[in-house]
């Protein structure tokens, strides 16, 4: 029996934000330090908000050392102080204790150009939720200024593989979207693969070899209760939760070669959806819940196909290049992120389902496992830095990039959670 209640040491060293092109005209924001009124907390809320906004690539921040004052409410603000720094938006806020162990944080977004308050908002929580409060503030500000829902309060699931004392240790982890607060979900000496979020963000499905063979499990993030869903001869892989959370698409090779199946989670009934001697794998759902996208080499090379679940009608979608695989759909239901091979390197590319246009987004090689943020602004993927597996992110317009380097071992197979609240 393995003892797993030890706190996992975080896989991340430090988030390195490398905005290679960035937005041509980033919005200039200043986040005045949040007034703490004597409350002792480790985290610097203002810095977390600032890092969130900068990581989106759409903002640049006024450094604290350049600020002439640290106002914490709108009435303390002298707009002139901020105009001369070129500030377009200013964030001010103050935290106060309200009850045993509980705090509330009132913050405001000020439009410096128009000299007016855009909104006031209050968030509240415990000391252990300080990072949640900070990301919530980032979400509100991002949405107000860009019109796009913020995804800073979301999470990542990913797999790490480390060689420890000559043996491999595989771990399934969940962290905040910025890599902080990593939590260990599962540790095993056998491979763990293909994490997939339930649409409610409360469960993960994944493949674990812990029985000596691949099997699909589901695990509740809050209770940690686990359930083995498959135990067939051959491949048991690539789980993908349906948009309504009631079904799971997956791959079984019990019929002799890999086929796409659909599992009804209430009845435990499996329905075979493909019937072909080629490799059929990597199913992912269209938002309508009626179609799947999957990878098949039935045309000679791996390409993306679309399957109507009811009629089983199958249509090839990608034609450019001889390797297009592992589609991940953006929330617009129209843009696919996929792995595309171009002159022997594997890049993440976007593919427009309407126009058929394919655009390479990454400059790294050996890219894998693209996963699009629930607001469609960024995608994360796995790649190699030297011989090490790392996670990296790129915006869907390829303008913004950053890397999340690991302290040790390989980090792989990111899966971006849905919106959690």
């Amino acid at each position, binding site marked *: 029996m393995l003892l797993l209640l030890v706190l996992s040491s975080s896989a991340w060293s430090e988030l390195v934000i490398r905005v290679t092109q960035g937005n041509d005209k980033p919005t200039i924001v200043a986040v005045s330090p949040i007034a703490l009124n004597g409350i002792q907390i480790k985290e610097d809320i203002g810095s977390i908000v600032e890092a969130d906004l900068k990581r989106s690539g759409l903002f640049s921040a006024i450094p604290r050392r350049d600020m002439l004052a640290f106002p914490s409410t709108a009435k303390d603000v002298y707009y002139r102080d901020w105009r001369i720094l070129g500030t377009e938006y200013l964030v001010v806020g103050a935290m106060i204790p*309200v009850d045993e162990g509980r705090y509330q944080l009132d913050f405001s977004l000020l439009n410096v150009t128009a000299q007016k308050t855009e909104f006031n908002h209050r968030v509240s929580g415990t000391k252990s939720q300080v990072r949640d409060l900070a990301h919530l503030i980032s979400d509100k500000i991002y949405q107000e200024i860009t019109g796009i829902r913020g995804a800073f309060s979301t999470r990542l699931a990913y797999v790490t593989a480390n060689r420890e004392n000559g043996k491999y240790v595989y771990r399934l982890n969940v962290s905040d979207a910025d890599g902080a607060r990593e939590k260990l979900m599962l540790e095993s000496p056998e491979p763990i693969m293909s994490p997939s979020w339930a649409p409610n963000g409360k469960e993960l499905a994944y493949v674990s070899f812990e029985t000596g063979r691949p099997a699909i499990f589901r695990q509740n993030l809050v209770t940690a209760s686990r359930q083995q869903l498959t135990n067939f001869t051959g491949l048991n892989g690539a789980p993908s939760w349906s948009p309504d959370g009631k079904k799971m698409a997956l791959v079984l090779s019990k019929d002799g070669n890999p086929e796409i199946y659909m599992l009804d989670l209430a009845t435990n009934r499996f329905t075979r959806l493909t019937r072909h001697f080629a490799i059929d794998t990597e199913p992912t759902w269209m938002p309508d819940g009626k179609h799947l996208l999957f990878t098949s080499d039935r045309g000679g090379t791996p390409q993306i196909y679309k399957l109507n679940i009811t009629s089983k009608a199958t249509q090839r979608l990608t034609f450019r290049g001889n390797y297009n695989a592992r589609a991940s759909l953006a929330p617009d239901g129209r843009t696919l992120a996929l792995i595309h091979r171009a002159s022997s390197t594997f890049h993440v590319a976007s593919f427009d389902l309407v126009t058929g246009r394919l655009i390479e987004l990454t400059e790294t090689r050996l890219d894998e496992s693209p996963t699009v943020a629930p607001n469609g602004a960024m995608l994360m993927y796995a790649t190699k830095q030297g011989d090490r597996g790392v996670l990296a992110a790129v915006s869907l317009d390829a303008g913004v990039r950053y890397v999340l380097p690991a302290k040790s071992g390989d980090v792989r197979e990111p899966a971006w959670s849905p919106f959690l609240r």
Partner: protein
Amino acid sequence: MIQTNKFGLTAAVLSMVLVGCSSAPTDESTDIEDTSVQTGQVDASVIDDSAIEVAIAADTVFYFDYDKALLKPESRAALLEHAASLNSNPRSVRLEGHADERGTREYNMALGERRANAVKEFMVLQGVSAGLIEVISYGEERAASYGSNDSAWSMNRRVELK
């Protein structure tokens, strides 16, 4: 074995109750939900990594070309020896298929299985009972050689007889 932490969960849920008294001007407010993550456990007792003895001295690792699942001619002699040994002395064997790291993980799982099945089919043609052969693919999850170069990749595109 499953670790649940009911007490911690209840405490966190209780701490979610909205606190609403203040005189500060507020358009709206948001309370943080508890979404803490708990750890699951692998039952280590079911993992069987006992080494299975291979009775004969012939090669037990068979290599493949990139993106291919065709047996190479140089694999034939050793496989014929293994088949003969299994025919005279039937026992269960395991064929573990692997891929190099290039391409996607689940596609490589399928490719590793295709390679292991190619070895299985060859042995069945030599008279070995299909029921004695278990095929498992590890895809690119268990590299034999580390590094992102041609020589490491060629060592990783393999089927291991165990």
